[in-house]
């Protein structure tokens, strides 16, 4: 898939997909992703192991992530350049939501 197709397919990203891809800015195995996402969301988001497996498989197939070695027979993944591009587009989109939310009173300060 080229960048345009990836953006068409994945954006807007689900919260799970976004956090899984974001976690792989640092190479991690599946369970490492579960723990990291739980930690950075203050325990709010605990991803299911089935969700992790399915999402990593799909991301790998679509070239968003790639294998980056093994640790104790656990496959380690890292984000690819295509994954980075997608993530940047999504962060920009979320930034726009946030800006507009504040600008038009969605933050409750109006």
């Amino acid at each position, binding site marked *: 898939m080229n960048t345009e197709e990836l953006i068409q397919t994945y954006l*807007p990203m689900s919260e799970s997909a976004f956090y899984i891809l974001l976690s792989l800015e640092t190479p991690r195995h599946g369970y490492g992703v579960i723990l990291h996402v739980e930690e950075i969301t203050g325990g709010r988001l605990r991803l299911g192991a089935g969700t992790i497996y*399915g999402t990593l498989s799909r991301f790998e197939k679509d070239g968003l992530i790639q294998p980056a070695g093994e640790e104790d027979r656990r496959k380690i993944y890292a984000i690819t350049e295509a994954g980075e591009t997608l993530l940047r587009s999504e962060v920009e989109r979320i930034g726009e939501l946030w800006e507009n939310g504040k600008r038009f009173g969605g933050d409750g300060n109006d």
Partner: protein
Amino acid sequence: MTKRVFKWWWAWKAEKIEEWLERQAAGGWILESCSLAGIVFHFRKGNPMQIRYSVDYLHKPAPDYERVLADDGWNILTMGGSWYVCCKEYDGKRPELYTDIQSLIERNNRLISVLVATGMPMVVMMPMFLKKLESEPLQIGLTIIWIPIILLYIFGMGRLLGVHRALKDKQNLSGR
């Protein structure tokens, strides 16, 4: 003490068997293994436990799947073929194997494809087979057996496609 229970269940209503297994565990009957393509359940008597059971289907065995589930505290029992029942003891919030809509859609799609792969040949081949039979009573008898099977198959597909639609609607509403 052990017991063996025969329990029929439908792929499109897996939550029923999951809840039944959970009630067994709450009564102290802990699932040890499954046999006969996942319809005979072997239990061991122990202390009552709170265990989440989740039925899953994969097209082929995947060591990575087993690894990430095991790391997250799931024990995997094979039901037969590529059917699995994943078990996790819990306290507090009931754990889920799938926590996002996209993965649930993919899981449902796997069930639809296995139903198509196993059911379609039966649906297509049976009339051809019946036509070739020379004995009329046998033809009628087999047709009487065959019709409810076809109806059940159509019902099951309808259920899975209904789940698919509901998940898609939910996904669209949530902006995905």
